[in-house]
């Protein structure tokens, strides 16, 4: 049953009169529009109401009200159960992640692997067990760094730069007076006498390029086919020491790895591995 249009307008006029208004400025239309809500299409009864209307037997209304309350309680219990299940699932997931053996160190190595090709320095991997216990020899470290600069036969650094063996340079280049490539030292203790001494002040040379220049200076002798000291090879020098050429003055200043002793062979191999970590970046830098 809906109120007809005329009756609704009469009702609106009556209300306006009771309120002392004349219905101008759209107030009448507004009230008529509000009264139009009584003509909303009602949906067909469903659920319990449909069952009640089909049954016809006037079941007590109290039972219906109780059933509605029970439905709301069931809805609340269902939400609570869902929340508890969600929390339990999150707890199980967090526990499994925490218990995973790869959860601790995996992230650090992954980040290091991602940054390997873009950072100018190479983040050293986990130090060997012996490296931590073995104190650093201040006397051997400069020699070792200079030896690291030795040009290896399979060193991709030098193959990518010019692709051909280079003639040995005089020792005068080591003091930094004639440098074609940036040759900073890998570590600060060699700043004074290392090949990076010729670097302009105020610039930060890439550390991974440090072994390159001394290797270019000192290691070319062996690649040129000149005789090498057999004792150095037996001593475990990984890439041909800087003093490979007999006429290289550097060899007099920094003896080869054989002079450092065979006990340093493992350490030298580890240093080479660290140096090679920066090689891909240097390739990109030079391209």
């Amino acid at each position, binding site marked *: *049953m*809906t*109120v*007809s*249009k005329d*009756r*609704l307008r009469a*009702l*609106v006029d009556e*209300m*306006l009169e*009771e*309120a*002392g*208004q004349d219905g101008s*400025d*759209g*107030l009448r*239309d*507004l*009230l*008529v*529009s*509000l*009264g*139009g*809500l*009584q*003509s*909303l*299409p*009602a*949906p067909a*009864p*469903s*659920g*319990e*109401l449909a069952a*009640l*209307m*089909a*049954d*016809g*037997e*006037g*079941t*007590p*209304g109290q039972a*219906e*009200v109780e059933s*509605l309350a029970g439905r709301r309680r069931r809805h609340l219990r269902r939400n609570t159960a869902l929340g508890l299940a969600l929390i339990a699932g999150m707890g199980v997931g967090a526990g499994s992640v925490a218990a995973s053996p790869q959860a601790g160190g995996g992230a650090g190595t992954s980040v290091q692997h991602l940054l390997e090709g873009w950072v100018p320095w190479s983040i050293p991997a986990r130090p060997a067990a012996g490296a931590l216990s073995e104190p650093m020899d201040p006397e051997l470290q400069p020699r070792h760094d200079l030896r690291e600069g030795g040009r290896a036969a399979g060193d991709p650094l030098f193959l990518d730069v010019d692709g051909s063996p280079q003639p040995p340079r005089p020792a005068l280049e080591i003091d930094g007076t004639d440098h074609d490539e940036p040759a900073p030292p890998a570590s600060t203790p060699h700043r004074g006498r290392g090949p990076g001494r010729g670097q302009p002040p105020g610039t930060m040379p890439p550390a991974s390029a440090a072994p390159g220049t001394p290797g270019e200076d000192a290691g070319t002798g062996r690649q040129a086919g000149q005789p090498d000291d057999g004792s150095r090879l037996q001593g475990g020098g990984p890439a041909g020491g800087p003093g490979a050429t007999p006429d290289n003055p550097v060899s007099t200043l920094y003896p080869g790895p054989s002079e450092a002793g065979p006990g340093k062979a493992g350490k030298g191999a580890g240093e080479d591995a660290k140096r090679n970590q920066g090689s891909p970046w240097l390739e990109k830098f030079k391209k």
Partner: protein
Amino acid sequence: MTDALTDESLLDPDPGPAAFGAVYRTYASQVLGYLTARGAEDPEAAMQDVFLAVLPRLDTVTGGSDGLRTFIFSVAHARMVDDRRRHGRAPAKVPFDPELDRREDLSAEDEALDRIAPGEVLGLLESLPEDQREVLALRLVAGLSIEQAAESMGRSAGAVKQLQRRGILRLRELASVKEYLKP
């Protein structure tokens, strides 16, 4: 008003499915419009709850069709009061979305609704205080008189009349502001 529900049919002490269906068909649209005007969260579900409470008690209704109308909207009013209290404890108000409003203009008020959209009317109603909104909904949508609205709300006729006057004045102010702000 074409009321298919006669006073004689309401005198049946044991109303059956026919009486339930007649009551539902007669008042369902108005109850739904009233609950919509009051801003019920789910007007259709609330309307079914109202009839679930009303139909089993038809044998207790007195006063004929007017008494039944007053009874139905008293239940609807109580239902809205409960709804408001529940909202006060756990507010979960969903704004009216005209895109989701599937109502059709089937009434004789199409002309007025063309000028003022139902969403705008409901928006204006939401700006009214609860009592004023209740009185306007009971009078315009439910079709109750001042006395019947007072009985449904549990107030005096004078109080309802005053609330109606304030509500109309407030609506006029809101409509004027709306017209002023209209581009």
